[in-house]
């Protein structure tokens, strides 16, 4: 702590990097060489970076957000300049001096503060529609559209089962995309995503008919759930609505009338970014120290829209979380933070049997869950032969979990083996019907896989 506010650690900064390339590029800019007019103060860091062009890029970071601004054309967020500047700042030294922001930085910071103030003060006006009746009519129209979409989809599935899955072999792809587009028209993005998934299963390796039948059946379950939603208990109905693609405003969760935020010391278990080309998403898993509850914070980003917040594994937040409604709440919105994030301990966990039981138990409430987050304690990675057959086994006893095949093309599994060295370790990941997908391992500081 100093007059500049809380100085970040280098690890914290590196965890903000959207990908490995930015991390490296930022690291290269983390020397005083290219920087001029660099300074920090009052929760902000700023500086000009001389690149190849004539005009230096101007980078400003609001460390309270965090939020970033840079005059460079990069689509990465934060860009390498912001990362480099933060690394320079985090490294200490006098290259980033305490001071008052220059005008170009102050303008952006002021605009941001103003916006924040509006958000904080005005979160009630926006969700409360000017014309509640009109909003109600809009919601009703959308429900009708989705009902129509679900009915159509049911017909499509029954037709498929009527003529047989074998008939979709090869010819099925185009028509699934078409159906997915129909679901987008029906304003049911959740259904559309599942339909697209079906298209990719057809003829996709061994056992595809079984996998296709599973997914068709779960989609059918979802259709039926939505068509009969009036008769479902409220939590399950909320799960169905979310799965179909109806979203809940996070602001309403945190400040609404029936908001029930959970305050706890939340340990960040994993932060995992993915980018499907159209949309960048970030999944942050948290575990409550007092409640023992798991939570998932999802955020989406895109060009010039940062993935926020950035929470490196291992930090503890004394904060309020509000769970999205559902039969098995997991996703949560991050509310008020009561203290700055601090380094946390290695989380307690369970064994293999308990992990599978946890997934099974979660499925009782939300049958569409592909996995459930669990911390495994005292498990030993057993490397497979030729990349296949990797397992995590209880330190003693005969139980083992296969690793999710999706992690077999990533280097993370070798990190798992290297850190273990044949000895038991603590691993966090998603335990599901495809196996265990490791996300973080403790050595004993957290290592993202």
């Amino acid at each position, binding site marked *: 702590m100093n007059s500049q506010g809380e100085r970040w650690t280098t690890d914290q900064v590196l965890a903000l990097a959207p990908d490995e390339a930015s991390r490296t590029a930022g690291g290269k800019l983390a020397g005083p060489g290219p920087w001029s007019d660099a300074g920090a103060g009052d929760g902000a860091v700023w500086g000009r970076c001389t690149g190849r062009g004539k005009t230096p890029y101007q980078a400003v970071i609001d460390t309270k957000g965090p939020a970033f601004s840079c005059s460079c054309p990069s689509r990465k967020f934060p860009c390498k300049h912001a990362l480099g500047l933060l690394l320079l700042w985090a490294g200490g030294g006098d290259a980033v001096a305490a001071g008052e922001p220059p005008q170009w930085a102050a303008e952006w910071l002021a605009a941001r503060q103003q916006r924040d103030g509006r958000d904080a003060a005005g979160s009630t006006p926006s969700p409360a529609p000017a014309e509640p009746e009109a909003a109600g009519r809009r919601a009703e129209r959308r429900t009708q559209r989705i009902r129509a979409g679900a009915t159509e989809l049911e017909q499509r599935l029954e037709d498929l089962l009527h003529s047989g899955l074998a008939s979709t072999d090869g010819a099925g792809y185009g028509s699934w995309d078409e159906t997915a587009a129909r679901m987008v028209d029906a304003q049911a993005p959740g259904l559309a995503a599942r339909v697209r998934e079906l298209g990719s299963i057809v003829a996709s390796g061994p056992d595809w008919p079984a996998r296709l039948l599973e997914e068709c059946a779960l989609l059918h379950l979802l259709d039926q*759930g939505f068509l009969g939603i009036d008769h479902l208990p409220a939590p399950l109905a909320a799960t169905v609505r979310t799965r179909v693609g109806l979203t809940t405003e996070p602001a309403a969760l945190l400040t609404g009338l029936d908001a029930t935020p959970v305050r706890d010391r939340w340990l960040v278990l994993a932060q995992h970014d993915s980018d499907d080309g159209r949309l960048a998403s970030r999944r942050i898993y948290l575990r409550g120290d007092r409640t023992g509850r798991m939570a998932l914070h999802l955020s989406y980003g895109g060009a010039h829209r940062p993935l926020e917040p950035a929470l490196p594994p291992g930090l503890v937040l004394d904060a309020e979380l509000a769970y999205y409604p559902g039969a098995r709440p997991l996703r949560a919105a991050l509310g008020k933070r009561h203290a700055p994030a601090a380094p946390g301990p290695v989380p307690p966990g369970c064994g293999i*049997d308990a992990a599978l039981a946890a997934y099974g138990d979660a499925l009782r409430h939300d049958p569409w869950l592909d996995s459930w987050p669990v911390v495994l304690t005292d498990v030993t990675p057993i490397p497979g032969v030729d990349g296949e057959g990797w397992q995590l086994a209880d330190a003693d006893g005969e139980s083992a979990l296969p690793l999710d095949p999706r992690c077999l093309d990533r280097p993370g599994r070798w990190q798992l083996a290297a850190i273990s060295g044949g000895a038991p370790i603590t691993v966090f990941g998603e335990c599901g019907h495809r196996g265990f997908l490791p996300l973080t*391992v403790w050595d004993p500081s957290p290592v993202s896989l």
Partner: protein
Amino acid sequence: MKPTEPPTTADTLTTDPLTTGTAPPASTPPPADTPPWPELVSAALLGAERRTPPTAGRGGPTGAAGLLDAAALSTVRRRAALRPAPAGERPRRAPDDPRPPLPPAARRRLSLLLADRGGTGGSRRGTAPDLTELLPQWLTAAGEHGYRAPEALLPALLDAARGRTDLRPAALALAGPRARWLARLNDDWKFALRGIGGDPGAAGADTAENPEALQRLWDEGLFAERIAVLAALRRRTPDAGRELLSRTWQAERAEDRLMFLDALRQGLSPADEAFLEQALSDRSRNVRATAAELLSALPGSALATRMAVRARSCVALDRTATPSASDAPAAPSTPTIVVEAPHECDAGMQRDGVVAKAPSGRGERSWWFGQLVEAAPLGGWAERFGGREPAAITALPVADGRRTELHDAWCRAAVRQRDAPWARALLGTPAAPLQGAETGAGGSSRDPAKLLAVLPEPERAQWVAEFIAAHGLADAFRMLGVCAVPWAEPLGGAVVDALDIARDAGSYPWSFSGVMGLAERCLDPAAADRLEMLTAVTDEPEGASPGSGGYWSEAFQRLVGTLRLRATMHAELAASARLVAPSGADRLSGAATGAAG
């Protein structure tokens, strides 16, 4: 796991006819029996229109809808009732690595250096440092501090070493026993077990303390493993290495004999002479030649003595001769070297490694003569030339225009015998190096870099600095390559001055990219402050290449950035050495402080 699982939401959703409007009860008993999953899959594959699904006649929807209901139920139940798999064979524990872990900043640095592998490497443009080139330096420095690599970075470290053989010795030494444990599990990393590249940390070291294991590896190992064993042994106890080799010598294949013999270069001493002398009669010509070369590097060996006798019989000092009528009329009594090349290459010469057949374009007598002088001990020439010092000998004129030929052979001898006085004399002054080479422009094979490598390090740096001051950077690349890192003053200053002059001359910086790259890796980081002044974009001088000023500024920025980064790197490794456990640092502290600059 529970043998029978409780009812799930899927039960409520599928078994309750939602359309009838009855609210689903909180818990519904599971349906009597759902058809087995494989039956459902085959029914779904065929289609309800071809075969009535097994779900028919159970109440509720039939046909396709019934099949979907049953499949949903079965899917969720199977997923909810997943059982653990039987555990496979657990890997044995990795051996402990007692070395201290890297300090956090150094650990992050390594992770950045490894992440940059192959990314922007090789680009000589832009202002950002090229991390790829800093990795070897980082690894060497970390090794000198006696750290172990962080486990989480071992896969990346092994991948890096896999792609770049030059990194292997340092990377594997840092990675230690945990990396070798890991490499046994992944075929991509098998190289780590072979110990190629003379890695003292690999196969050789594992067996070093265990003579039986060593003998077994020598007797049964793969060729590469055996080479590693021999090399490791030669480093520690050269005699034991030779004895190990001589026991199986007769049974080795010719190619292997050649490589094993070559490994004796390490730790070569007069004690090896008997073995080498015997190898002079080897069946393989290449083995014979290598044995002769090694023997000639031992000035006291019998072979060296024989060669000295032969060489001396070809060279005489004529105290009366006039080098040439016009050359030195004023000094008719200047002693002059007269060369009389041998007339034949007899069996004895051939046995001692003289190659009889000259390469095309080379007279065979001159060819034989060159080989004799190269293999003859340089120390013997003083006596031949009236007790003169090497510098005086090399200053003597040579009759019949054979100066280049004779001096070239002496240069090769000085390199082979690592004779510093002779190397110094042959190099000449930096302002006018290698006198005699220019007179014999027709094919001098002298390489100043090789001669420099024979000189002590400070003298090397001094010589190259003066050479650069006199001649610029154009021919300095290879000479710079043999200077110790970081460049000692005045060498660093000379290089910076020369770069400054090159900029003022108006050429583009990439004409000097080789030297720039070397400077990034080898300049003392303390030079950064001086270089900082050069990063300003200057007015381009008259006749400069367009835009060169900006590119020079960029190139200097990059150089400064890299130097600063190197200083930081070393500080990250060194500063912490004082803080962390002294266990590993004791032995290495001397080396560490030496390298930290």
